[in-house]
């Protein structure tokens, strides 16, 4: 019987590049930018790293295959480098590898890097690519906005929600994230936006408008992890430890079982959340989770994720959102750093960037974004794929004595 990850692994240091249109940077340069910060934060020499993980979503469009680019860019000391990919959940997947290596005793100190350089594709949004030889014959070559927009129609129909109310709730999500991103010097988008602008923006994939969709960014983020004992031995006092790390994957039920899933939620998120809360010893998430960073690729995703994480009742998230419950000064701030929407979404880096903000907030280092009530447990939710078939990974980090 697995005993869980709670308090077995501590974060020694983290780094995050500025996200945005980094025209003058390659993926390599971005990884170095994030790594330098993390190493300074951890107070380490590169020879102390025993193993590394690299998460990239679209390696064919930027960095290329295998873990070698990480080893070469950072001149790692011929340690093992594992390349991982799970669509947009690749960042947390990378973190998972490093954390498990430390928890198993296979490594004392491990590095988890995530990077994406998407601004060489020549157009905005995720690059169009094959999803496999069989899928290409039988599946829809849609866009990410189109794939996720479908939740809105299903959610509205499931709960009988007026289309105008749903559109306004979605808009509130983006307005809130823009207000938060404005306080973040590393964010891709830093301008606040108002409800009218969001509501009247051009339609991308009905009912998602321009401001309901995150763009893509260049960026890298990384974490260096070790055991709490080694961290204290290196002089760290306030430790942020991993309280839970759970991942769930669709198995075709949503996609192929008629009359089953009704399209209005993410089943793997519900499953992973349940497991993560149990692993972390959380039984009242609305009271115990101080902050969330969720996968707000689209405003509707964030909306239903509040329900999937049990932070709102089914069919009620739209009300709670309009009520301000998830604003920076609300009961459970969501995307206090601007989220995917404004901080940006370099696919492989995003899961680690979520952890980065949670880590800073827990240590009181978030500056103008610092949550007024000191946080104790912070959750990150990182999703890859699309509503009908996805990988949902949830990490909960907290102060070691929380």
């Amino acid at each position: 019987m697995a005993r869980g990850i709670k308090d077995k692994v501590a974060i020694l240091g983290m780094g995050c590049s500025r996200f945005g249109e980094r025209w003058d940077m390659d993926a390599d340069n971005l990884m170095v930018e994030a790594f330098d910060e993390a190493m300074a934060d951890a107070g380490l020499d590169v020879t102390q790293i025993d193993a590394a993980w690299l998460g990239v979503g679209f390696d064919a469009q930027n960095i290329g295959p295998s873990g070698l680019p990480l080893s070469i860019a950072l001149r790692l000391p011929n340690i093992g480098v594992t390349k991982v990919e799970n669509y947009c959940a690749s960042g947390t997947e990378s973190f998972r590898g490093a954390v498990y290596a430390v928890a198993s005793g296979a490594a004392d100190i491990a590095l988890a890097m995530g990077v994406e350089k998407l601004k060489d594709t020549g157009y905005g949004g995720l690059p169009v690519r094959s999803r496999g030889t069989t899928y290409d014959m039988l599946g829809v070559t849609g866009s990410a906005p189109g794939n996720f927009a479908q939740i809105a129609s299903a959610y509205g129909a499931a709960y009988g929600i007026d289309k105008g109310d749903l559109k306004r709730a979605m808009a509130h999500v983006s307005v809130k994230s823009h207000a938060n991103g404005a306080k973040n010097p590393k964010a891709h988008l830093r301008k606040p936006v108002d409800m009218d602008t969001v509501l009247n923006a051009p339609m991308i994939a009905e009912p998602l408008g321009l401001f309901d969709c995150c763009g893509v960014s260049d960026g890298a983020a990384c974490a260096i992890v070790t055991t709490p004992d080694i961290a204290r031995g290196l002089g760290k006092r306030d430790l942020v430890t991993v309280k839970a790390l759970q991942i769930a994957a669709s198995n075709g039920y949503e996609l192929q079982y008629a009359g089953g899933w009704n399209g209005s939620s993410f089943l793997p998120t519900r499953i992973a959340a349940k497991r993560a809360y149990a692993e972390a010893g959380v039984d009242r998430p609305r009271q115990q989770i101080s902050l969330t960073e969720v996968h707000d690729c689209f405003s509707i995703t964030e909306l239903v994720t509040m329900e999937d994480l049990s932070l709102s009742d089914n069919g009620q998230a739209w009300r709670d959102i309009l009520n301000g419950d998830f604003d920076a000064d609300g009961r459970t701030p969501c995307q206090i750093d601007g989220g995917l929407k404004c901080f940006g979404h370099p696919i492989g880096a995003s899961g680690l960037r979520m952890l980065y903000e949670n880590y800073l907030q827990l240590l009181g280092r978030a500056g103008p974004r610092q949550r007024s009530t000191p946080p104790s447990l912070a959750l990150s939710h990182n999703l890859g794929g699309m509503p009908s078939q996805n990988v949902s990974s949830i990490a909960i980090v907290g102060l070691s004595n929380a």
Partner: protein
Amino acid sequence: MDEVGILSFGAYAPRKRLSRTAIYEANKWFASGLKGLAKGERAIGDWDEDSITMAVEAGRDALRGFDRSAIGSLSLASTTLPFADRLNSGIVKEALNLPDAVAASDAAGSQRAGLASLVQALQAAPQKSAPHLCLAADMRRTRVASELELLCGDAAAGVLVGRGKVVARVLGSFSITTDFLDHYRSARMEFDYGYEPRWVRDEGYLGIGGRTLSEGLVAMGVKAASINRLIVAIAVRGVAEALAKKAGIAAEAVADTLQLKIGEAGAAHPLLMLVAALEAAKPGDKILVLAFGQGAELLLLEVTDAIGSLPARNGVVGSLNGGFSDKNYMRWLAHRKLLDLETGMRAELDQKQPSTTLWRHRKGVLGLVGGRCTKTGTVQFPKSDISVNPNERALGTQEEYPLAEIPARIVSFTADSLTYSLAPPCYYGMIDFQGGGRMTAEFADIFDGETVEVGDAMRMVFRIKAVDEARGLPKYFWKAAPAR
């Protein structure tokens, strides 16, 4: 009574009907003389339709109520077959989910190919032990500001021929073959080349056509006055009436050429008009069909008492009722690649189709055949080794289960303006089939301003999914269209 003849029929015209006035208005700066032809509407296929997809729809219509596993052969006649070498009727066979042990052939080369293939099928029927599905379809490629652009329409028709409770029997047929170069399209050409319309009418339609009628009636031993319906599949005004008069056939017998609502559908047109005639026929009616093309083909049929007993179908009546009035000429030109549209970088996705994966999955891809678990009854698409049933993930228990004819409903959807599509916004979403089975599908036939909602009824249609432009290959699959 068990005799040989026509067992069933069907037809399909695409929903969009392009205003001929819109065509004329766009081109009148150059071709003001075409005003006389600028009346009514012509059927135009959407970007994702071609002669194969239209033939499939006509075939489905003609096979309503018939056991597909009992079909013995099929043919597809067209002057616009997508493939010069890849059995076009073979793709139709997969889409109709007919048994592998069928014969299939393509007929091309002339505007009379549709009727000729029907005549040949009827002549061969007494020797055959299983019915033959005779299909014809055309989507003629026409130059901007040409007469043909205004005269033509895209459509398909199907006639099931064999032994059984026939709705029409053959009384006779007659053929004349002469190399009359009224128009031609060689393998070196993209468009037809036609000669002087006055000469074509006088020497061709009236000359050769008239001769075929008069010699044919004599050869068949039939009196002109006994003909109840004369089908002359020629759109040019006045030709059918003149032929009838010359042959001694009553003026009231001349069938409407469907010019104002559909247009002349090439090799399919004689069969399309025949379907329209059969839809309105009474037992005992004698229907005479004339098709012109390097000579002419003649077929005489007599409608039987069984004509009223066929299950309801789309046919020509349904095709006429289902139309969507369209004035967007430019969009049609772009769809037919007569306009070089800036399709953007998202259109650059390599659409290579490995033959190996298509072969392995041909039933699912071309036939929309899924799987049904024999243990739990769970239906799914595609068929898989392990059932998707969450309570019983049995291994290797699925039998083939065709889904194309099963109604479905929308579970979720979107209208996507970002993804590359030649019919933006691209509608797609999740649908559930009646009795089980679920898939995410692209939606078709949703035009300007039309919308759908969760719960709407849908039916599956066979369309082009994407085109591998680099390697010249249209890739076919099924889409969901609003059930109207």
